[in-house]
């Protein structure tokens, strides 16, 4: 899957949880889920669960620990997809 496609899918996933519209519109690889998008930390787990459903992968605890940004999420998704 191309990175742009991954980012577009991720953008769709985080949409219901974001609290900063401007940062959302400008979402890029460097966007931070909490610092930029102001996603409530309790909703971060929803992002993780939605990513699992969307890509049919399992995100283990060690991976989840790092999933604070678009970049980290992409890396994790790519690695899990490759391991499938």
């Amino acid at each position, binding site marked *: 899957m191309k990175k742009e496609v991954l980012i577009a899918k991720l953008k769709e996933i985080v949409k219901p949880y974001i609290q900063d519209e401007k940062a959302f519109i400008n979402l890029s690889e460097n966007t931070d889920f*909490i610092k930029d998008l102001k996603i*409530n*930390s309790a*909703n971060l*787990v*929803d992002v993780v*669960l939605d990513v699992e459903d969307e890509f049919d992968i399992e995100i283990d*605890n060690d991976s*989840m*620990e790092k999933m604070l940004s678009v970049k980290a999420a992409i890396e994790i998704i790519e690695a899990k997809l490759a391991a499938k």
Partner: protein
Amino acid sequence: MIGNDVVDLELAKTQSNWQRKGFLEKQFSETEIRAIEKTQNPFELVWLFWSMKEAAYKCYIQTDKKRFFAPKKFKCFITSKNEGFVQYLEHTFKIQYQLTKEYIHSWVVKEGIVQKSFYINNIKKQSTTTNQNLLNNFTLETDIKKDEFGVPYLSKENQKLPVFISTAHHGNYGAYAIFK
């Protein structure tokens, strides 16, 4: 170091679905899940545990400057109607909490800590209202800044003050803790 967290229970009802498949398993230990399953008010306990974990995490990263998301590793223990503790690796954080019908406020207990929770009328001004409430404890020129890890600190004339602070807001509730 200091940490506190607040949960607006009304907002939590609509913002998160704790009964969603996988939701508990991703962030709570087996012992915590058993306690949630057994209690009369699981919704309340989910958010009490959550706020305790957040308060402990916020306290922890004030010294170990590294952001991460590992709620499951912060293990909660409740010892009374307003006290408990959280264990993370070799660290133990003593917690006090205030639980009302409307909100939960949890904070890490320290000698001489000042903490307060309050209602925020204008939800769009959560952040500024919370900061202003905290700053009311200090002189006019004092300001709140955040470092790259999102840890807040007090600044006066561009000098970092030797005070630990923690702010929290969620929905119509805000809270802070100050530790000198």
